[in-house]
């Protein structure tokens, strides 16, 4: 097989002309716009996968920047245009909506008709919920037993704390902090064969839960009974759906068989993000004939906190005898950045950096002192300017939201569940003009409205803006718009430089002025203890509020991105757990075992095309050692001290 056979299918030309500009194929407009022939542009290895056998199970090991999204899109288009089966199709599964959109856009550029029935492109969750869990889960959970009832799944997030969940609380207490927990807060871990506490808050929740539960049978029964009651009412967490779907398919081969026939080929993008239940579901489908193509990079697995273990994926690849193929040409980064990234995950693999080096020093380390974050950003900004790199396609990357808040000069949000604070948080975010900021503040406002006006209602999750079940969607949107409008037109409420006590009164007055037949009186509950005399604004922002044009992203948020340059900032101190926020965790040299911290750094490093800069703390009390300087230089970094002075000059 060759490019020509691909051309016949995708471009409908019999042979590829020498020059793309005289080509009259279906993709000519795209090729003209791109300035190259899209098919000849594919490398040998990319072509190998596109033309691989869809009757085989394949693991496509794709290094960062290897163009895997493009390859998947071409593969999908190539296969679907030859496709003959009327009711069976290919499922391309991703893990985030943004990854889904990216693949959809690419596919649309290769397939004239875009994504069509019987194929599916979307997130694993939407596919699982839409084709398996919603239709059939009631067989194992018996929710909506009376055949006429709607057995749709009602998804509750594990951090939801609403009044209706009180009906699904455990009989026993699981610790001083947790107390009686509700059924959405824990799930069954099929690997460890025990219940685990899932929310991130409180931080010690998991440990406390574990130690209380230990081996007590009456507690296990309590947890099981509570969970059953929850399920019978049609409520599920995302984890529940995965585990139950696995059980469903395991126990009902007939259903598994039909689904396997409906989707004879499943391509999973970013396969390192597959959870164990998801892998088990894929295994069951494979046993019934589905072929599985996993595409991804195990070194980029960064969801340990969601119990995602790359060992499970490795075991799946092995036990299902997936044929390994490789994409090891990195078109994103230059060789220096590639080398530094590989070194961080102790990579033995060979990755070729295909990008020419455009700047003399592509690897930089900025050493910053306490409270010099602002100067750090300033220096980075001027270096980008110097090198002529557009800021738009650069990011400052931090480990998590706490790091983001720190750089933005916000106080770390402690994800409180206080209604008044939610309203204030909404107001605080109103001057954030980014899409993220808009989405976040609407979600926060929606939650506040639900909690204050419909506290007793069963409601949806953040995806449907916490909509109370008794209200229809358009009415709910109208309510949110009405309250949003009322708040942003109210000078007193917009003024966050008052203390909490006065601000609460202003909010009360403002909300009382809202008139709608759907709304009663808002129940705002009480302020958190001890804050009534604090200024509202200080709960959200620090005094030296930063304003930077360069967007700040968490590592998880920048997954899959391709950026001109990256400034990856370490936390100032290590803190109490090795979350990967602190730079020394990135560079731990242990041959045998790669930690998640290293993989996190690997993801951050490998985003950069031309320039990778690290922001590393250099406290006066414990300055960076010579050894450490040497180590950084071994990676290829040039170290820049005294950033404050540099940034001024």
């Amino acid at each position, binding site marked *: 097989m060759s490019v020509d056979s691909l051309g016949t299918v995708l471009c409908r030309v019999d042979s590829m002309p020498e020059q793309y500009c005289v080509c009259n194929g279906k993709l000519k407009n795209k090729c003209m716009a791109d300035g190259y022939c899209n098919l000849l542009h594919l490398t040998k290895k990319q072509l190998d996968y596109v033309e691989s056998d869809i009757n085989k199970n394949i693991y496509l090991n794709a290094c960062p920047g290897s163009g895997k999204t493009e390859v998947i899109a071409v593969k999908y288009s190539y296969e679907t245009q030859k496709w003959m089966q*009327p*009711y069976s199709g290919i499922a391309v599964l991703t893990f985030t909506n943004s990854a889904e959109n990216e693949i959809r856009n690419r596919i649309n550029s290769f397939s004239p008709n875009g994504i069509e029935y*019987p194929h599916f492109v979307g997130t694993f969750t939407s596919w699982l919920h839409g*084709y398996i869990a919603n*239709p*059939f*889960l009631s067989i194992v959970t018996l929710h909506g037993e009376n055949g006429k009832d709607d057995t749709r799944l009602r998804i509750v997030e594990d951090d939801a704390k609403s009044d209706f969940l009180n009906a699904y609380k455990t009989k026993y207490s699981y610790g001083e902090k947790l107390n009686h927990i509700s059924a959405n807060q824990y799930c069954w871990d099929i690997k460890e064969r025990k219940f685990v506490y899932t929310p991130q808050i409180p931080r010690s929740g998991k440990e406390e839960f574990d130690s209380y539960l230990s081996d007590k049978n009456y507690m296990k029964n309590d947890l099981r009974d509570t969970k059953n009651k929850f399920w019978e009412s049609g409520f599920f967490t995302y984890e529940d759906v995965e585990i139950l779907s696995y059980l469903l398919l395991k126990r009902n081969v007939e259903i598994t068989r039909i689904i396997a026939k409906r989707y004879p080929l499943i391509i999973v993008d970013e396969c390192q993000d597959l959870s164990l239940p998801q892998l088990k579901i894929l295994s069951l489908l494979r046993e019934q004939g589905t072929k599985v193509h996993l595409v991804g990079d195990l070194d980029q697995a960064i969801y340990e906190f969601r119990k995602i273990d790359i060992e499970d994926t490795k075991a799946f690849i092995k036990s299902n005898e997936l044929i390994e193929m490789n994409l090891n040409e990195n078109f994103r980064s230059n060789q220096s950045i590639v080398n530094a990234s590989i070194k961080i995950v102790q990579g033995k693999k060979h990755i070729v950096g295909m990008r020419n080096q455009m700047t003399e020093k592509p690897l930089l380390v900025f050493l910053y002192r306490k409270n010099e974050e602002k100067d750090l950003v300033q220096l980075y900004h001027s270096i980008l300017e110097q090198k002529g790199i557009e800021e738009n396609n650069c990011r400052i990357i931090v480990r998590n939201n706490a790091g983001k808040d720190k750089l933005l000069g916000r106080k770390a949000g402690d994800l409180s569940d206080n209604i008044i604070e939610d309203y204030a948080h909404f107001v605080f975010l109103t001057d954030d003009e980014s899409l993220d900021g808009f989405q976040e503040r609407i979600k926060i406002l929606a939650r506040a409205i639900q909690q204050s006006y419909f506290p007793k209602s069963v409601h949806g999750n953040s995806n449907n803006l916490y909509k109370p079940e008794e209200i229809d969607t358009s009415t709910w949107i109208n309510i949110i718009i009405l309250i949003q409008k009322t708040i942003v037109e109210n000078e007193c409420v917009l003024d966050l430089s008052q203390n909490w006590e006065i601000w609460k009164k202003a909010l009360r007055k403002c909300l009382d002025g809202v008139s709608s037949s759907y709304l009663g009186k808002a129940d705002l509950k009480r302020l958190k203890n001890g804050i009534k005399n604090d200024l509202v604004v200080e709960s959200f922002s620090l005094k030296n509020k930063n304003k930077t044009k360069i967007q700040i992203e968490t590592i998880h948020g920048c997954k899959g991105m391709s950026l001109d340059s990256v400034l990856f900032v370490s936390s100032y101190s290590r803190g109490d757990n090795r979350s990967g926020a602190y730079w020394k965790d990135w560079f731990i040299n242990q041959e045998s075992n790669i930690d998640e911290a290293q993989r996190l750094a690997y993801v951050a490093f490998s985003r950069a095309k031309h320039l990778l800069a690290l922001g590393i703390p250099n406290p006066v009390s414990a300055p960076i050692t010579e050894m450490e300087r040497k180590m950084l230089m071994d990676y290829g970094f040039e170290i820049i001290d005294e950033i404050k002075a540099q940034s001024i000059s």
Partner: protein
Amino acid sequence: MYLSKVFIENFRLFSQPVEVSFQKGLNLLVGENGSGKSAVLDAIRALLNENEFSRRGITEEDFSNNNNGTDLHGADRLSITGIFSDLSEEQKIEYLTWLDNSFNAKLNLEVQNRLNNRNRYNQKRWGGNSSNSIFDSEPLNDIQCVYLPALRDAERNLRTGRGSRLARFIANLSADLLKEKRKNGELMPLEDDLKAFNEKAAGKEEIAKANKLINDSIQNAAGSVYGQKTQIQFNTLSYERIIESLQILFSEAGTDGFRNLAENSLGYNNLIYIATILAEFEGLKDKYTTPRILLIEELEAHLHPQLQIKLLKYLQQQTDECRIQVIISTHSPLIAASVPIDKIISFNRVDGSCSITSLFDCGMECSASRFLNRWLDATKTALLFSKGNLFVEGIGEAILIPILAKRYLSKKKAEGACSISSLEEAGISVINMNGIYFHYFLQLYNGYKILLPERVAGETKENYTKKITELRKKTRLSNGEYEVTSRINIRCAVLTDNDPAKKIKPSLDDDVEGNNPQLWFGKQVSAMTDNCRVYVNKKTFEYDLSIENKCNAQIMLNILLEAIPTDGSIKEQLESYITRIAKEETIDEPEMAASILEQIESDYMGKGLFAQLLAEKLSKQEEMKFDIPQYICKAINFLAKIGE
């Protein structure tokens, strides 16, 4: 895969939820006006998004009102659910997200009674049990549903133009070729031909000349910069437009030349229309494995009786050959009589609500349905359109009971005991069983079926038969001996003869044992159901009429006397009875009744003629006293719910 069940709630007159069962192939919806037949057809159309219906959309009137009329707004939401059974392996895959726990495909439609800002009612359609499953539109579109309304304008539907039936048919037949040609950027053969013809036409002298003149004028008027070019030819048409301009012409058998459909008769145009649709199904039968449903409202519309039957038989044949499901509503007893009884779905309006019964769900025994198929003819299928049935033994009752009932009901109405004055007014039919066993009929109405046990090993045939017979004849069946079945929810009464031995002549007060082999059944239905009752006389209908009262006997004797052809002892005896009645002498009334019966059954008279003569008398002389036997009054009371 076929539509096996539909659940409807709050749609039109169905303010109470109803369930309708369908079978593969032919289904005939039979019932009185306003009993919900059209509503069921429309519910199926709404559910399947049938073309015409989806253009019209759900309207305000589609939401049911509750019966007391206080609810002007209509129900808050209506819902329609359809179940498709018997899915093939392939269909299970296609209808994956529609599957319910028994691997049937389930399709739901819910419409909120609130207009959105596009002035449409909010609709939600989903497959299976969960409204959050993925719902692809392709599987729904694969279910072909065609609807023929009662007032068919076949000519309009076959006319050329956008979305014409014919164009759709041809487009479907050529779909694969068209797709292939379009994919490769090639023209369809028809397009090629038309293009060639166009070029040729443009070159014809007069056309070319006209074209040149026009072009010259444009050049002169607008100059070469602003001037346009023209070309005279037939419009360049795409394949889709070409087939849309095709039309059907007709020619009558034995004549040459084709004529426009506008010149054809309504009936034949209808036939052509139906034929087009059937051809569409037939032509595509190998292409689609998906269900195809043809809904016909009042098949009899515009067709003469022989054509109705012919068409029906053809439809029935098509259902088998092309695997289509045909659902027909009808008011025609002729059509009802032409299909096997288990294909009939009976619609009845009972106490203001609708009752729908699929006769195959009534637990009819095989022998009973075979019998009924033979027996039901156009006159007898009236029972399917009535609000109550009175089954009678023979022609005598069939003629006289309506008249006797009218006398009885008029009296009752005058007393204020009821609001009707005849059986017709109440929609109650009198059905002549012609001496056939009545328990066959009652199986449609009684709502239970006796569970006959299998013969156990070692049991002699004789013992087994005895056991079964005893079970069948039990006055009251115990739990486990019967199962509850569907039933047509209207009342049925049977008037039957006691038939004691010929020599037994019971008086009005005697209770004698009869030989009617089905008397046990009367007792059983009384115990088992509220819907059916059997009323038995002393001996036979005519005997009971005459023994009821001496006046009755006198009237009957007079009829016989007028008709008796010979003078002799019989005539003398009849005359002597009349004289003795007039003189109010004591008479052996049973003996007299027996004589009257004997004369009625004699060669010169016969029950039919006698009944007719008596009926004439009773109708002409409304004031004349004639008493009605108790067992008849009771039957009428039961049917007309007098005294309840």
